[in-house]
């Protein structure tokens, strides 16, 4: 097995189109007590399997080499031996017990119900995550920040291609953090390999998981349950910081929130809103409605030449803010701030030849958001 593995790895080197980051062939030990326990368990089972494999395949290989007709081997005539059969049933049974004991211990450790110091509600959306820090006034969306050009192979891919987000989940080091997982639409699964946490986020139900990270750093993961078109594009980034840095970040977040509401009261020109709108649109809307505004026939409607875009703005604003029931169109009321909403609506009404000339102001949106 290992030989094949090495051979393949070598082959991989020769064939690989480019020498990307160093490759990894095994589970990562991770940065929590649990993840290390899982890693040890994984290695134990792996070596047991290798040992059984060596014995079984060894005997098989021996027979293939020695008991072949071309070597003049004559077939013996035995086809039953109850003792041997009982032995090879009992022995695996004991091996299994040997695996079950550490596995059970690890599992019980994972189900520890002790008090957490920080509770975060994690909500899966098609195709982003929302983190709500319970008891703090912090609530934000976290979506893929890899530029579309990189995905479309129009520019060089960055180091963390597809594993980078605009707003990472920030947690303090050494503290027990409890995650309360649920979903807004379909089933997602929140997975960060470095923490050995994988739990499904199910609409209408709440699941819990917890972690205590022992080393500050940035840990990356992905949604692990097929959740539709952009399942491959909803990564998770956990930024683990020291206690002070975490406090600092909390303060910054609160300040940023205050600033955003100030920005909404300023005056914005059409050009400014269009520029901001294009950025928001490409980040938030283009996954479905496409950069060209043409949508995907049968799945996502086109915005280009869409009558709603040039008619009176209130219907348009209503759809963006409140979503459209029974379709994939989400309510963006909470997902974007007033400036972003105003910008993206203005952009949609004036891009791709939708020349309505309308300017929807952040102030207008703020009023509706009350």
């Amino acid at each position, binding site marked *: 097995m290992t030989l094949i593995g090495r051979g393949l790895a070598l082959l991989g080197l020769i064939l690989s189109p480019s020498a990307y980051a160093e490759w990894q062939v095994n589970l990562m030990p991770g940065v929590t007590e649990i993840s290390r326990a899982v890693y040890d368990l994984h290695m134990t089972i792996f070596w047991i399997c290798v040992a059984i494999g060596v014995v079984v395949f060894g005997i098989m290989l021996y027979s293939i080499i020695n008991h072949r007709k071309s070597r003049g081997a004559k077939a013996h005539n035995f086809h039953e031996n109850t003792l041997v059969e009982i032995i090879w049933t009992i022995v695996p049974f004991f091996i299994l017990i040997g695996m079950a004991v550490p596995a059970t211990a690890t599992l019980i450790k994972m189900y520890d119900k002790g008090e957490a110091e920080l509770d975060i509600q994690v909500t899966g959306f098609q195709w982003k995550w929302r983190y709500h820090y319970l008891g703090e006034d912090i609530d934000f969306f976290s979506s893929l920040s890899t530029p579309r050009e990189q995905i479309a192979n129009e520019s060089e891919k960055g180091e963390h291609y597809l594993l980078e987000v605009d707003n990472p989940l920030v947690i303090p080091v050494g503290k027990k953090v409890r995650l309360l997982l649920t979903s807004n639409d379909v089933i997602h699964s929140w997975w960060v390999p470095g923490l050995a946490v994988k739990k499904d986020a199910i609409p*209408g139900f709440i699941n819990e998981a917890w972690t205590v990270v022992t080393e500050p750093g940035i840990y990356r993961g992905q949604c692990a349950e097929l959740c539709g078109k952009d399942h491959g594009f909803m990564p998770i980034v956990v930024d683990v910081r020291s206690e002070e840095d975490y406090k600092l970040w909390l303060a910054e977040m609160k300040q940023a929130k205050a600033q955003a509401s100030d920005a909404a009261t300023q005056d914005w020109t059409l050009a400014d809103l269009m520029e901001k709108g294009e950025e928001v649109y490409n980040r938030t809307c283009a996954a479905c409605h496409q950069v060209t505004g043409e949508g995907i026939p049968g799945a996502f409607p086109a915005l280009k030449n869409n009558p709603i875009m040039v008619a009176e703005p209130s219907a348009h604003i209503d759809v963006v803010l409140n979503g459209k029931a029974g379709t994939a169109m989400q309510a963006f009321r909470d997902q974007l701030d007033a400036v972003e909403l105003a910008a993206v609506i203005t952009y949609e009404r004036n891009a791709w030849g939708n020349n309505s000339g309308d300017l929807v102001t952040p102030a207008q949106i703020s009023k509706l958001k009350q």
Partner: protein
Amino acid sequence: MGTLEQTVETEEHHGPARGITRWLYTTNHKDIGTMYLWFSLIMFLLGGCMALSIRAELFQPGLQLMAPNFFNQMTTMHGLIMVFGAVMPAFVGLANWMVPLMIGAPDMALPRMNNWSFWILPFAFSMMVSTLFMEGGAPNFGWTFYAPLSTTYAPPSVTFFIFAVHMMGISSIMGAINIIATILNLRAPGMTMMKLPLFVWTWLITAFLLIAVMPVLAGVVTMMLMDIHFGTSFFNAAGGGDPVLFQHVFWFFGHPEVYIMILPAFGIVSQIIPTFARKKLFGYASMVYATASIAFLSFIVWAHHMFTVGMPLAGELFFMFSTMLIAVPTGVKVFNWVATMFRGSMTFETPMLFALAFVVLFTIGGFSGLMLAIAPADFQYHDTYFVVAHFHYVLVPGAVFSIMAGVYYWLPKWTGNMYHEGMGKLHFWLSFIGVNITFFPMHFVGLAGMPRRIPDYALQFADFNAVASVGAFIFGLSQLLLVYNVIQCIRVKRHTTAQVWEGAEGLEWTVPSPAPYHTFAQPPLVK
């Protein structure tokens, strides 16, 4: 039993009808078996093309060839076609051809139903494949079609998908009923249960499994249909339903389904290894009991597919323990095969090569299965490429290799001609190498953290994905050799004996090659 005292003497000994009507109206088990096998070959190639398009997209990071939504349609259709269109019909085809020959029956017990159960399939799969051209595209929710992605959020074509599943379910159930009736009622005098060849035994047990779980699958898609069109809320939390219930019901079908796809494979391998080791199968009785045991156990392990949905601790432990225990009877089978080879007198014709590769690679798939059974470790493996590697190891060099082994093994009996041994070996070696290059690196990317069912991936997975894609094309293209070999074997006259293989034993080798259109009209006497 012995109900064949009054035989089918009244039946005329005529050859097949001419033209297309032969195939449309046929009730002959050999014709129907042949049709099943050709159908499954076509489906295998179609599903294979989809697999190759998936691998082509995954050759490099970035989106090159297809949009993510189409990628999801490809993975879904690939899974459904391979499971329901390629592997299962191939086994039914082999059963149709070989079971009556092995037990000395003149035909299947219910020949007209046999014709039906085949002819439903082309319609079911035309319907399924036609969804690719519908507005909104084909099903894109994975072959496991978890709700609510497959209900509230599904493309409109889901209704056609549901009816296609209903149709192939009916086909499978009818096929299974026929096989059970044939085995229980049509055995030649003296062919007692404990003399049944292992292929017949495994199929008997598989048929019971089919009857037990295909209706559950029909039930779950019916619930989906009602949720989508009739306002019920089986799987919708808003109406008091539960999406997790879907997974429970699905896997209650799904896990026995896994064994439906592997038990007949065990049977084929248990026929081939003794033939080429020139030695009786070791532990025949144990093999039968182990098969039955696996079948029963398959009903109580389903939730190991759902360790991450948030089950209570006791539930996780229960399914972990029961899953680990199912490894014991499976292990017993592998030991028996090795013991059969031990001190035999082996030769290595193509069927034997495929059978040996089956034993080794299936065991590797079994090891990764055991690792997946360990719940805490499964939190890391679940829904990654490690799982993809695991089930492809069990299904491709497992189920598919056993089918190929069976085809090469029985092809001379079907056509009366020997296939070209050199080409057969070439096909084997290319497939063997291709399969390993494709699926072995998937273990690595899975452990490194690559989720399954994604059209694009992070850079650290790039190298092994490129390797896997190259392997997939080697494996895929080498299947053209299989097509070539089969056609050559039909067309090139290289007459073979009734016995075909030196070590072959059993009733099927007592009839001439090619097997006449009607065999055992006069039941043979088995001593």
